[in-house]
């Protein structure tokens, strides 16, 4: 008798759920409204997206994309950003109000769709894989236009910048910052054109998992090294940051070792104290440098022009004797962000860490 009682309860409980769910099957899908004050843009996944003619509220869901919005000068339109960007030195330095912008999650911990909807955005930028997590579908059900932004290679990064410039009505600055990027790379190429292949510096980039990790040719960092005229000794690696054995590092014996901004291990400890690695050419010649940390110059963003410039000057100081890197970087930041690099707290341009 008692057995029957709870079984009945359970059945009732599930029947309620089932009927609830069947109801939703009948629900209609939203028909997109078209009116005069909208326009259509094509995002980087090739999707045609109808957005308001004037976008005043934008949400970005991961860091490089937030930095791209800053690059085109659209930071005041941000109403929701990824978790880290409300405290990053660059974003806070340029736009202190960012501290009060809603955090909506990130690639690692997921996006809180309800929080995104609550910010009432005109446009939300998501990463390429977000559609597999259902985020794009969820936002589209809510009638919120969603743009897929893919800043991976240099070409895609430029595309992304111009797209965001168009969306935010900041095409002029987007073009300007891309021109600056292209010109910087062309200038470096011109200065280094007489350096033969055999004299190119062989660079080891110590990465996110410590000194004994590096990245191969599928990362933007590889492109940075190439554009700065160097050779990435770890080019053969695949799949982002990978561990490297000490023996492999000795076999590569790079001319210069650069620590990525993500590398938290001290080069002093890891290289100079280790008897096996002390004999490396780069350690003996003290060719150990830390990548400047403030501006995230190793991200696929236009600001990485400064990273390339810094790297080429570090690798080939004799070809850039007339270039005052500090002045150049400060002017760049003043021009595009209204604050100089030094004012943002950047004092690490000598490559010896903060």
């Amino acid at each position, binding site marked *: 008798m008692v057995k029957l009682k709870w079984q009945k309860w359970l059945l009732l409980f599930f029947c309620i759920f089932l009927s609830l769910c069947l109801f939703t099957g009948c629900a209609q899908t939203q028909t997109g409204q078209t009116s005069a004050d909208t326009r259509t843009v094509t995002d980087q996944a090739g999707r045609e997206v109808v957005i308001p003619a004037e976008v005043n509220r934008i949400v970005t869901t991961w860091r490089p994309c937030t930095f791209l919005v800053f690059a085109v000068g659209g930071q005041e339109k941000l109403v929701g950003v990824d978790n880290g960007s409300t405290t990053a030195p660059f974003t806070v330095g340029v736009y202190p109000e960012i501290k009060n912008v809603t955090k909506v999650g990130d690639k690692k911990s997921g996006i809180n769709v309800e929080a995104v909807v609550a910010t009432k955005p005109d446009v939300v930028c998501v990463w390429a894989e977000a559609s597999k997590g*259902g985020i794009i579908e969820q936002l589209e059900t*809510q009638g919120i236009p969603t743009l897929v932004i893919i800043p991976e290679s240099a070409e895609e990064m430029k595309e992304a910048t111009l797209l965001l410039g168009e969306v935010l009505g900041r095409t002029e600055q987007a073009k300007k910052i891309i021109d600056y990027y292209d010109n910087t790379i062309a200038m470096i190429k011109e200065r280094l054109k007489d350096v033969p292949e055999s004299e190119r510096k062989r660079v080891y980039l110590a990465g996110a998992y410590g000194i004994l990790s590096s990245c191969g040719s599928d990362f933007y960092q590889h492109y940075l090294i190439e554009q700065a005229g160097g050779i990435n000794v770890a080019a053969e690696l695949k799949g982002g940051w990978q561990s490297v054995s000490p023996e492999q590092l000795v076999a590569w014996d790079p001319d210069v070792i650069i620590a990525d901004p993500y590398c938290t291990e001290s080069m002093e400890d890891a290289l100079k104290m280790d008897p096996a690695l002390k004999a490396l050419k780069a350690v003996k010649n003290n060719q150990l440098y830390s990548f400047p940390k403030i501006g995230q110059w190793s991200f696929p963003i236009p600001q990485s022009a400064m990273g390339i410039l810094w790297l080429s000057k570090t690798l080939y100081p004799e070809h850039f004797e007339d270039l005052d890197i500090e002045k150049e970087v400060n002017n760049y930041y003043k021009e595009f962000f209204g604050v100089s690099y030094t004012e943002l707290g950047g004092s690490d341009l000598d490559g010896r860490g903060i």
Partner: protein
Amino acid sequence: MGEESSRFKGSNKVALKIILAVAVLICAVVISFFIGRYRIEPMRLVQLLTTAPSNWLASSETSVFYYIRLPRIILAVLVGAALSTAGALFQGVFRNPLVSPDILGVSAGCCLGAALGIVLSRYISIPYLVQILAFIFGILAMILSYSIASISRGEPVVMLILAGMIVGSFANAALSFIKFTADPYEELPAIVFWIMGGLYRANWYMVLNILVILIPSMLLIILLSWKVNVLSLGDEEASSLGINTRCFRLVLLGFGTLIVASCVSVSGSIGWVGLVIPHAARIIVGPDHKYSIPMSMLIGGAFVVLMDNIARSLISAEIPISILTAAIGTPFFAYLLIKGRGSAWR
């Protein structure tokens, strides 16, 4: 006769506890309606509850409630109930209180399938490929474990646990390999993110799909739960009672796997629920599976929906739910252990 009436009294008490648990679950669900980052006035929400489905997209209040919040709440209840049921079932079948639903390598198989789906979706575009592959690989892992255990000639339960470990470790190795070779910009974060688990993906399509699997499986498990009692006596005794242990074990494990795989394939692996909730249920209603399995189902559903409320509304960003289930579930478990003095383990 005296024994009879005290037994009857005992089960009456259990029935009361189960009805109470149903009430708690319903309360938890109703409270969840009112919680979320998108602010809807409580009075307004009560009005919204009667909206006809054709008007669900009429305003952003209704579309947020019916297309984001409600499916998520239902999914949380379902996943919590299913994982806890599977946990209680597996602990009974394996006669081991430390067993969790992923004992047969099911979760590891699901994760492998999902990672494969994420990588493959670059080449083939099938909607919900990730979820489908996760489900298939979860089931495959269980079939493989069961086959290995059947072929080997040892004590069946021990062999199953060992085979599950083997299959789980192999699936984990394969998963690590896929992560090693995945594209670092999109695929790798997507895989890591997927495995961590969460209910943010919830939509009606998913809810409906797993309902179709979960309801019959869970009802069947409840109807067969008295057989778990017999199985938990051990093979020899169960056989002497005329039960075909091999057959029932396979059926029960099969349905248990089915519900775990369908949960993990939509929500990723959510830790601790399948391990802790059955213990809590046993402490409340005693070791009889006839009661402890439905009880696990009820408190599991309530627990996960409450944890998910925190995950989606404490801060504007999303908190991974596994952190919450472990951080809040474990002290609760410790409390129950101390209070129950381990009495639920005969």
